[in-house]
């Protein structure tokens, strides 16, 4: 018997036995948490929507129905469409390598994956300007061959990929490390090919964590401002992503449109949170399923 069983009633007992504070303290703490979140999260979020609808529904919809706004939305989707799958594939490959093999420089690889979280987004943008800019290392060669990287789509995609590299990999590495390689080894022993082992053993084991990573990665890819701002060149209708478009509109005294586009990004965040909550619940369920004492639940989620 394990000391902690994750079921509804034992969970409650366990919680009660650990809580020694009086109910007053408990209520005060909860009230403080809600107050804080209301002040710093909920009110600003509500303000975004209030500002967005200030000019009425027609003005709100009109904010999206001009060429520049549509181009910004299209570009943001396109960038995420390229960056997220690439980072998902890289994340799985990197996590696989780190969790299942031992090799020299493993720790360096782990550190490198974390690097984008540590450097400022401005730096993330500037490194590409230094590399691919007209005065940069590869600039003259690129100009000779008429290849545009920065101030064009490739640069924006590159910067986005850079800042979103860690999300999938970081989600998978601890999970795959804790799972070990026993199941994979068993599959190989039973005659599975490498691909079969991956699709039937590894992927089912990591799918919820993978999805979780992809959701976070996507949210960041669509919302990234700093790095993209450096490499974008701010050409309207061409290299302006949604976050950049919001800033432009706001600086043009066009508050309604700015907040309308911002509300779209906010909706994206809310959808992301909802998806995250669902995936989180799914991620927890295999633990219960694996517990032999609870055979009833085992059937339900398979």
């Amino acid at each position, binding site marked *: 018997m394990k000391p902690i069983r994750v079921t509804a009633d034992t969970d409650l007992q366990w919680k009660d036995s650990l809580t020694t504070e009086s109910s007053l303290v408990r209520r005060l703490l909860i009230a403080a948490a809600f107050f804080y979140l209301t002040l710093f999260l909920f009110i600003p979020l509500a303000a975004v929507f209030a500002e967005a609808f200030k000019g009425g529904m027609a003005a709100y919809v009109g904010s999206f129905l001009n060429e520049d706004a549509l181009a910004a939305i*299209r570009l943001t989707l396109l960038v995420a469409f390229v960056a997220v799958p690439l980072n998902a594939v890289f994340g799985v490959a990197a996590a696989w390598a780190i969790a299942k093999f031992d090799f020299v420089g493993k720790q360096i690889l782990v550190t490198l994956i974390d690097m984008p979280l540590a450097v400022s987004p401005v730096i993330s943008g500037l490194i590409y*300007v230094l590399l*691919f800019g007209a005065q940069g290392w590869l600039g003259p060669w690129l100009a000779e061959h008429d290849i545009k990287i920065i101030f064009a789509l490739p640069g924006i995609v590159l910067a986005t990929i850079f800042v979103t590299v860690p999300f999938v990999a970081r989600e998978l590495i601890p999970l795959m490390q804790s799972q070990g390689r026993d199941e994979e080894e068993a599959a190989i022993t039973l005659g599975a090919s490498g691909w079969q082992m991956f699709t039937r053993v590894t992927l089912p084991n990591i799918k919820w964590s993978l999805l979780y990573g992809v959701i976070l990665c996507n949210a960041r890819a669509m919302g990234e401002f700093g790095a993209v701002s450096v490499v974008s060149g*701010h*050409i309207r209708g061409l290299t302006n992503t949604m976050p950049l478009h919001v800033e432009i509109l706001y600086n043009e005294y066009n508050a309604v449109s700015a907040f309308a586009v911002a509300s779209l990004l906010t909706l994206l965040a809310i959808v992301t949170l909802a998806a995250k909550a669902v995936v989180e619940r799914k991620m927890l369920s295999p633990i219960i399923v694996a517990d032999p004492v609870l055979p009833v639940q085992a059937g339900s989620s398979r």
Partner: protein
Amino acid sequence: MKDREGGKLIVKIKHVMSITVVLAGFLLWYAAVQAAEPAVILNVSYDPTRELYQEFNAAFAKYWQKEKSQAVVVKQSHAGSSKQARAVIDGLDADVVTLALAYDVDAIAKVRLLPSDWQKRLPHNSSPYTSTIVFLVRKGNPKGIRDWDDLVKPGVAIIPANPKTSGAARWAYLSAWGYALKKYGNDDSKAKEFIGKFYANVPVLDSGARGATTTFVERGIGDVLVGWENEAYLALKELGAGKFEIVTPSISILAEPTVSLVDKVVKRKGTEVVAQAYLQYLYSDEGQEIAAKHFYRPRTEAVAAKYAGQFAKVNLFTIDDVFGGWQKAQQTHFADGGVFDEIYKPNK
């Protein structure tokens, strides 16, 4: 068992195929969107010209369609003037640049994207419209600000932008310096002292003109905004005339925003003719009228006379007369270790 496997495989293949179709469709659609666009030129400009070029670009497209029956789309990019020059130097494909001051275009000429004598290629020093530096104060002018002297009084909070990054801010700095020189009989050390007092009254330095305007107007910080005349009028128009007043100082600088073709880019893109015509159209009656409508001072006499009532009379001096040109002014005042660095110490 085998059948089930086969069925699964077919489902898998179907999945892969449908994903491929969606992908291909997406790429085709994106390519089509890209290809449908007509002759495109890019105008890389500074912060406050957004509204001006929005209207001017539409007018030029109409004119070009009529003259040459060719559709033309002018794309815009706006940010602080020096930042934009930097972007063009780093490879932003500008066909034309329309920046806040000649020094920034000079910087682009240094990497040989355009010839060093660019300023002689178009009339009026390649500056199709001018502006000057004025004060925007809160309604009723509670601090009684009339001229530059009133700005350096204790207790007045001034909002300029950062002269290191903003064109307007450099014009404002030089304008104040020019006033002090005149007042103290060309005594440089007195002028420096005056400017020192000026920046001691600055609570926050924004990086661009538009940022400074929003700080003053929307965030409600400071007693007086020192910036572009056109920006002050626009703020008045956009945000309610009842809340602010414009104060024109006794003397100010003639700010000459400059425009130029970026020769290397237009030659590569084959857009030389249309880009050249675009800049020349700024000097046409219609171009001048649009500039005047957006509170830039027009250059041609006819249009200037027509809009004379719109602008306050002010004694204007030029940067060439007082400072010996941009290169010199930049070296002395704004370069690293220059006079501005000596004077300005944040968080005093």
